[in-house]
């Protein structure tokens, strides 16, 4: 037996023992994992995006009523989650997909991942958010992407917040606005679509060139725009106007550090300066749990879930019978009209609009 002079013999003894222990542990982990996925018939799999949330109580009401266990599979942001659903359509990951919005709706419908379902609750749903006449994708909620401003800034500077897109080109609003890159951010894309809805595919680039003249700042993601650049958030950035959601001021009240009487920010809902994002749910083709999947969709459209959504995901009910929580009644501003671009046009022109925009604004 050879011994290296520097060697302490307990080292390899210990490491050999450690190796066996580790091996046993690894086997145990694999076995445990195998036990965790038993073939239970009553499991409903719901595939969705990162922002999905629900009250534990509300979900367990559905589970006990239908004797089912719901497994939520979060699959990245909206675009990524949808891509996964499309690529796995021959062997679907789940029974239901929730979270495709109107900017991605055409991609989902063209790829034919959903089975139609004419839910009995559709009669209670707002008419103008039903964008798929064949009911493959059923609307669940909506939220408005709107400009937000920092109230304190405008008070201090004795300035009125802008009321329309044209206002944003005026010298007094120079250097105040930060927006997101539509190529990488969902509110960024919504805001680009708002300008297209207002000025048309021929005129929107001129408006953007005007914004660039007026010292517009573009960043890649909502987090940087809101927390690093926007002065109304607790990141205390330098710019007082940002593209965000009409629900953001309400968030600022609910998640304030010390209780607030009113939000430090406000959403601009006048003009046609907001874009309505509608989110849809659909039954994935090839599900073996069609009945349960239908029940899940009815559940999502029912007042119980619809009333739970606003405080969980900060999106708003499409069921006309659902009541809004008091905090929203008090602080939420809802636009009367929003800019509109059809899902078909979005799908057809997305790439060319993004390219034109990039050429005009970033180069």
């Amino acid at each position, binding site marked *: *037996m*050879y011994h*290296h002079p*520097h060697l*302490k013999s*307990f*080292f*390899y003894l210990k*490491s050999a023992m450690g190796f066996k222990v580790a091996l046993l542990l*690894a086997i145990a982990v694999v076995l445990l*994992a195998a036990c965790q*996925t038993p073939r239970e018939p009553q499991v409903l*799999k719901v595939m969705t995006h*990162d*922002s999905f*949330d*629900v*009250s*534990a109580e509300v979900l367990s009401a559905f589970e006990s009523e239908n004797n089912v266990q719901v497994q*939520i599979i*979060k699959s990245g942001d909206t*675009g*990524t989650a949808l*891509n*996964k659903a*499309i*690529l*796995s359509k021959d062997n679907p*990951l789940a029974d239901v997909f929730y979270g495709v919005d109107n900017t991605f709706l055409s991609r989902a419908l063209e790829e034919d991942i959903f089975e139609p379902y004419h839910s009995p609750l559709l009669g209670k749903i707002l008419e103008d958010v039903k964008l798929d006449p064949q009911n493959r994708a059923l609307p669940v909620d909506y939220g408005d992407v709107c400009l937000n401003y920092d109230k*304190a800034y405008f008070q201090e500077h004795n300035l009125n917040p802008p009321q329309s897109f044209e206002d944003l080109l005026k010298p007094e609003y120079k250097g105040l606005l930060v927006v997101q*890159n539509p*190529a*990488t951010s969902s509110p960024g894309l919504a805001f680009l679509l708002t300008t297209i809805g207002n000025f048309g595919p021929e005129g929107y680039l001129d408006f953007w060139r005007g914004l660039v003249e007026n010292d517009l700042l*573009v*960043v*890649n*993601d*909502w*987090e940087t725009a*809101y*927390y*690093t650049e926007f*002065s109304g*958030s*607790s*990141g*205390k*950035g*330098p710019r007082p106007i940002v593209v965000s*959601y009409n629900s*953001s001021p309400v968030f*600022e009240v609910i*998640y*304030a*550090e*010390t209780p607030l009487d009113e939000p*430090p920010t406000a959403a601009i809902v006048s003009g046609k300066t907001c874009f309505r994002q509608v989110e849809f749910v659909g039954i994935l083709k090839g599900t073996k749990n069609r009945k349960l999947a239908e029940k899940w969709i009815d559940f999502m459209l029912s007042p119980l879930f619809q009333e739970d959504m606003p405080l969980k995901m*900060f999106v708003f009910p499409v069921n006309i019978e659902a009541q809004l929580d008091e905090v929203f009644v008090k602080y939420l501003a809802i636009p009367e009209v929003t800019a509109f671009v059809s899902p078909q046009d979005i799908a057809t022109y997305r*790439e060319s609009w993004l390219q034109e925009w990039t050429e005009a604004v*970033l180069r």
Partner: protein
Amino acid sequence: MDRGSAAVSLTAHPRQGSRAAFLLWLIPLAFLGLFYFYPLATILQVSFARGEAGLAAPIRAMLTSEIARRAVWFTIYQASLSTFFTLLLGLPGAYIFAHHDFRGKRLLQSLSGIPFVLPTLVVAAAFNALLGPKGLVNQLLMNALQLSAPPISFAYTFSAIIIAHVFYNTTIVLRLVGDFWSHLDPRLSQTATMLGANRWKVFWHVTFPLLLPAILAAALLVFIFDFTSFGVILVLGGPRFATIEVEIFYQTVSLFNLPMAATLSVFQLACTLGLTVSYSFLSNRLSRPLSLRPRRFTQHSVRRFGERLLIALYLVGLFSLLLAPLGALVLRSFLAISASGEEMRFTLDYYRELNISRRESLFFVPPMVAILVSLSYASATVFLSLLLGLPAALALRRASGSKLSRLLDGLIMLPLGTSAVTMGLGFILALDKPPLDLRASPLLIPLAHTLVALPFVVRSLVPALRSIRPRLRQAAAMLGADPRQTVLHVDLPLIGRALLVAATFAFTISLGEFGATALIARPEYPTIPIMIYRFISQPGALNYGQALALSTILMAVTALGMLSIERFRLAEIGEF
């Protein structure tokens, strides 16, 4: 004939050597085949099959696209500059850590690894707190110089990208090169000095050539990291800058142009493979067997005043870059700022709030659980990547110089050069049938982390293994040890330190990994970075505060983890 090649010809019985090497390769290759190449091939095949115009069309589109060409050049340019500056800053640090003993060294060493684990969004917030238009430095300068506008603009500049890359990756140089340097036999340079060489000559003709394999290994890893950079470019670089990786993300998620995304992915992979193969070629020519010395023979405490001053200056510089942004983050996580922005006060609210489920959300997870989840993924990653990396490193040492080993070396490295978006989709497509239906399994996370950690483990181990004198192993063989015993009783103890460096890399990579984790995470088992992202993607002071509080916790967990790995060294491996 130099001593290295003489030694090789003495040890290697070519046929037996290559069969043993093949057996050693089998385990890591089987793992890579199943969890890397199979998913990758599946997604590439499906992506190209979606193209209606055939295989050549996306390639032609890439070659003729102005945007793609710009992305390729920018990627190479920024990665080269970033790597250069990372080495420039890291090498003196590696020297200091390797040769000098001083109080607080161990703490500083583990602090230098913290940036490695932090999510980009948080790092951007930290830099902004320091260098942003309303940041500390600008405010100080404006007050001191009576300026009306902030003098430094940091965010969305090319320098921001370079600085952030240096901030993230300096630890790679400190660890890989520093460790190797600390074991270089000082007698070599002492001899050179005695023969009349001055310090510069000693460094240039003796130390530097011996160090080169470790420097190259570090440079390769840093370069590939910068080459495939995503978060730093998006958040700190802004929309004016795009790397190939950013372009892949845009083509996949925003446009769903999978053939184009796959073409770019293949290009990125080819670059990674090419780089690694040429690295292998170089490092095989450069490695020499050495007598590695225990650290206590190579270290001395700092005595001369001039030396002290230089070291102190350098360390202050290094750590103000690495630690000032982190300090700003930690500080901010204890501060409540009034809505007007005028007043600040100390608070523990963000930390307290982490434990409160205010909305009775189904996905509420107390921070302790996220810490445990992160730690268990990290431990599994350390275990798996050492289990796979050690045989791979042994095989690489054995077959050193052969074409096969150069290729295999490249294969191990490929996961680092693979886009997370591409890989995420590959897992979904490929691992979808029992017994390997891992699509929604938490097991997928340590597997994905191991893919990223493996190159680091192999790169930490190979230079150390190659430098073991063959004589030691020959002596063992002559005394009757079989190859397994030789590895266990000669190689392993001699590379104990490198094993710990490898373990530290695997640990930090797993703790900080976000891209792949986000794509395959189960909401019930979020890691700390996933939780940070959940908070920072919602408006509200409490959400922002909680993201910063969790970042502080992540830093503490990382530092403690690395310190305890260091302890392990002291307890069991002794002086090596």
